[in-house]
């Protein structure tokens, strides 16, 4: 969820603002009471109140992911996410999950390049329990060799399931490698098997101490809560955790692609698959919004150019999909095409290039642009049906911008994005020398 919604957070904030100030259909947004505060130890707290259903969501976002990993230690951010469920002195073993699940709640986590996120959903009567559990494991986690050894086995199995057994993941990994050579974004988040096996208890202890600090954490609680009382409770439980100054991290340079790079792999799949990735700027860049609209117009909406031409008219593809992830560092806009009717991927690339060339010479009409904006509006209305949905969207503004209100204030120009803006970003970013291409040929691996 996170990566895709990251770009949506910017868009969401714009419509959120628009709805609040002018639209008489703003009901779902204005009904939620919100509060934020930064505690003296640096913990950022963001609360959204929605008393309509007796449920809460409790999300802890840690600013660490595979981006922070060094060569030879890949996979530690994700492995450590697993270790966070292995108990404290107060809640030994699987005490955390048992406490949540035995009350009908659920708890889980995910790790991305930019973040590690822990979340629980449970009946609101158990809010204090969660505050206790989460504040406890932020400082009192108990790590031991036995648990680490088993969790490595589990993570290797996860890697084999999500990565080794999935040929599409092989293709994505190959694309990352050629687009981000020498940079952590060039590796899969889950890490290399040998690296995972080589991680030690000390690695985990150091990682915990360095990154799992209040000043590196955003806490988001939403749903059936009283924001004032909840903030008091959070201050009581988290406030005593000492402040630790974070070391500034220097990431490797993310070099531009510079020249088109192509790679072909062969796997026992049923048809060719084309994967094209264009380098895009990091998350704070103004061009991400028009890029996102361009992506929707080209690939996502019902009447998108790609669907009409590649699937319906030329009949070269069975499916076309795209993904665009604004992140801390320059990342990628990926287009995937599953070829149909025995069409080679090279033909798909030829047709794709023709579509992209057209965006350089023929601007989208105002109607076409309006259609894209219609869908964004609908998406936001749907997302805002619950306070937990609103919190989920705004939390990315809080995480990346340091304060969700900054995102709101920056969002005011969104509705003014023009066809010329789309043409401009197409010209800047959708160039052959700014892309990597991985073709997966259907065939027997030699």
């Amino acid at each position, binding site marked *: 969820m996170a990566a895709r919604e990251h770009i949506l957070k910017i868009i969401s904030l714009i419509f959120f603002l628009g709805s609040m100030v002018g639209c008489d259909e703003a009901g779902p947004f204005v009904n939620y009471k919100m509060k934020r505060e930064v505690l003296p130890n640096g913990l950022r707290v963001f609360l959204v109140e929605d008393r*309509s259903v007796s449920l809460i969501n409790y999300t802890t976002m840690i600013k660490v992911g595979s981006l922070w990993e060094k060569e030879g230690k890949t996979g530690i951010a994700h492995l450590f996410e697993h270790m966070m469920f292995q108990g404290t002195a107060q809640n030994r073993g699987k005490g955390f999950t048992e406490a949540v699940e035995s009350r009908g709640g659920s708890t889980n986590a995910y790790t991305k390049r930019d973040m590690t996120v822990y979340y629980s959903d449970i009946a609101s009567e158990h809010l204090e329990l969660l505050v206790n559990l989460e504040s406890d494991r932020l400082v009192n986690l108990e790590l031991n060799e036995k648990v680490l050894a088993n969790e490595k086995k589990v993570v290797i199995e996860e890697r084999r*399931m999500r990565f080794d057994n999935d040929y599409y993941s092989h293709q994505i990994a190959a694309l990352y490698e050629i687009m981000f050579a020498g940079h952590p974004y060039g590796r899969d988040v889950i890490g290399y098997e040998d690296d995972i096996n080589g991680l030690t208890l000390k690695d985990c202890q150091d990682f915990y101490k360095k990154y799992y600090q209040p000043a590196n954490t955003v806490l988001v609680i939403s749903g059936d809560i009283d924001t004032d009382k909840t903030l008091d409770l959070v201050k009581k439980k988290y406030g005593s955790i000492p402040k630790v100054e974070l070391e500034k991290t220097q990431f490797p340079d993310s070099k531009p692609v510079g020249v088109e790079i192509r790679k072909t792999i062969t796997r026992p799949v*049923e048809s060719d698959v084309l994967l094209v990735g264009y380098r895009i700027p990091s998350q704070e860049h103004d061009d991400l919004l028009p890029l996102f609209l361009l992506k929707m117009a080209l690939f996502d909406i019902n009447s998108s150019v790609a669907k009409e031409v590649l699937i319906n008219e030329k009949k070269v593809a069975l499916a076309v999909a795209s993904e665009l992830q604004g992140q801390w560092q320059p990342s990628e806009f990926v287009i995937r095409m599953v070829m*149909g009717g025995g069409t080679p991927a090279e033909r798909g690339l030829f047709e794709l290039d023709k579509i992209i060339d057209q965006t350089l010479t023929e601007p989208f009409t105002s109607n076409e642009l309006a*259609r894209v904006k219609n*869908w964004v509006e609908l998406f936001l209305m*749907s997302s805002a*049906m619950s306070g937990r949905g609103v919190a989920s969207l705004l939390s990315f503004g809080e995480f990346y911008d340091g304060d969700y209100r900054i995102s709101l204030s920056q969002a005011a120009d969104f509705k003014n994005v023009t066809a010329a803006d789309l043409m401009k970003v197409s010209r800047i970013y959708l160039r052959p020398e700014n892309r990597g291409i991985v073709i997966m040929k259907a065939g027997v691996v030699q």
Partner: protein
Amino acid sequence: MKNKIITLFMVFLLSSCAHKEESKKSVGKNTVIPAHKIYKTKNGIELYHFPYEATPLFTLMVALPVGGITDPKGKSGLTNFMTDLMRTGVEGYDEAAFSVRLDDLAASLNSAVTERWTIFTASGLNRESSSIYDLFFKMILEPTFPIDKFSRMKNNLLEGFDHVVDSPSSVAFRAVARIQYNGSKSARNFSGLLKDVSTLTIHDVKERYEEMLTSEGAKVALIGGTEANGMVQNLIGFLEKIPVAPKISENRIHKWDYKELNFPENNIVLIDKPGLRQSDVVFSYKGPSRKVPEYETLRAIENYLFESQNSLFQRVIREEKGLSYSISGGFRFEDELGLFHIHTATSVEKTAEVVLEIEKTYKGFLEQKGLSDPEIARLQNMLKGSFPFMLDNHYVLVQSYFGLLLGDVRKNFYDTYVDNISHINGALVRNVIEKYMHKNFRIVVVGDAKKIIPQLKKVGKKYTKVRPQQFL
């Protein structure tokens, strides 16, 4: 958790509940089914309107009482294919114009085919409801079924079968369905068999459409809007254009045209996919139907075995042995025959070990003959605590409630769910285990046979090696 919610939601869809005009019911602690009003159109359609003003969105669901179970013999997948084709051209709009109009309105139109229903769904902004209705009912009442679109969609569908083979778990569950339900009308795959889909003609589609389009027994739900804004009356006008035609007779339900798959019962069905680093392993046996009265007790057992990180199988297979990232399982409740299954994926070199460990764990569970009182109390807390998730927001709640109306299980699901959980006790658990949980499984393994066969031989397991294409 997602799995848990989906499971609960699906069960809701397959259950049933009584209703009254202007009803408003208590359903569990702190939760209420939204007030709604029931209308009957001149052509006999029941319309349930759930007003909602907090969000300027609406969802419309039109359920026509013709499902995939009456697909003609040798034409499995026909109804599903027909509904997909309906949006490729309607009177006044070709496919491209139809897509543009959808985007102009930011409208979503979808369809789904279940055992007994064909359900069309529309959603969008209230302010566009009139235009969306217009487009939606053009799709239902005036599809043109263009021949070129028929050919393209059929080709795409046939190619899609090939891609099933790319996914080990998809292959595994297709195989399980074939092995467990051979010849049964339950648990049919409504997207059809490859050999049937390949014979579909445009004539079949048009003939099926005429059968499907009937107001007789149709049910409709409108979520959103108010009576005052005209959305209901406008909708009734459209609904009354649906012709009255007799429902398809139950006699049309024919024997499912599967080729019999006679694998020796004690053999593992080993589906060979060379090169895989992990094997998918599925244990299964035939389970109870969705009409089973002990539903909540079965849910409790399911939770004990699979549905939390501290469940029996997660604890043994993942936490103690590190054999898998995850193991899932439980009951699938179908119209007549259900399914009990256990599914995991493990490194290919551990395949036989996982098979033995699952067998041992399950056998141990049966031998313990029930659950202790503290275990039962814990499960009761889990189930009661997760109940509000089924009623999460207005749309989830109402869509689930409409699902109850389309089902045919028991009339008081909401009213009795929490009480039934409270009444679970040791004797009930023992009875249910005795009645529904069997000793013998069919086992399907999808993986690299060359690496798996020596392991199976070593532990004395017999197997039948097959190709994945056999199950399409």
